[in-house]
């Protein structure tokens, strides 16, 4: 059974600072997704990482995947208030189903 551990679960940052969210998973997965969720809203797809060493960047967010270590990271550069949200990683396991982490609640303070 695929298990996912995200940390930290809560992250309070100052604007302009950098930080990294970590996502560890327990068994082989063929790809990994990162999602953003705003309060009361659904999931917005940020990145899909398909292979070992994959790196994707969009604005102030950069995601990477190390399949050998079963680790993905989401790096935030020079945070701004608009990035405040909950971020989930979700590796894909058997039967194409996603297993989500508990999420990281990010708060960016001025």
């Amino acid at each position: 059974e695929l298990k996912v551990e995200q940390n930290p679960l809560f992250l309070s940052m100052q604007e302009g600072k950098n930080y990294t969210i970590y996502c560890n998973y327990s068994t082989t997965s063929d790809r990994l997704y990162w999602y953003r969720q705003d309060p009361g809203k659904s999931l917005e797809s940020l990145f899909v990482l398909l292979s070992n060493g994959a790196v994707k960047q969009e604005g102030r967010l950069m995601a990477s995947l190390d399949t050998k270590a079963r680790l993905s990271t989401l790096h935030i550069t020079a945070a701004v208030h608009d990035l405040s949200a909950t971020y989930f990683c979700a590796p894909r396991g058997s039967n194409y189903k996603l297993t989500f982490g508990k999420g990281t609640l990010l708060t960016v303070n001025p």
Partner: protein
Amino acid sequence: GAGVSQTPSNKVTEKGKYVELRCDPISGHTALYWYRQSLGQGPEFLIYFQGTGAADDSGLPNDRFFAVRPEGSVSTLKIQRTERGDSAVYLCASSPQTASRGGYTFGSGTRLTVV
């Protein structure tokens, strides 16, 4: 349609009642998934359809939960004898076949409250 549509957006029901939650996937998407998200948690897998058949229903918590997709498009999640612990947001997602290149599009969810 343009996105995954879920109805109703909110449902309040009394303990013991029966509820149906509907998901209308993106046209042409053959794969459909139901997830449940409890407060403060990540979504948890319930069931996956490929076409009309349930390819994996291992996430359904018990036999009070049942889902159908009779014509391979719209799906209905049915919950019998609802309990307060069933209160959650039920999310539906669809993908083209097995999301071989792209991703999964999630609907806005149905917030179910059992009182």
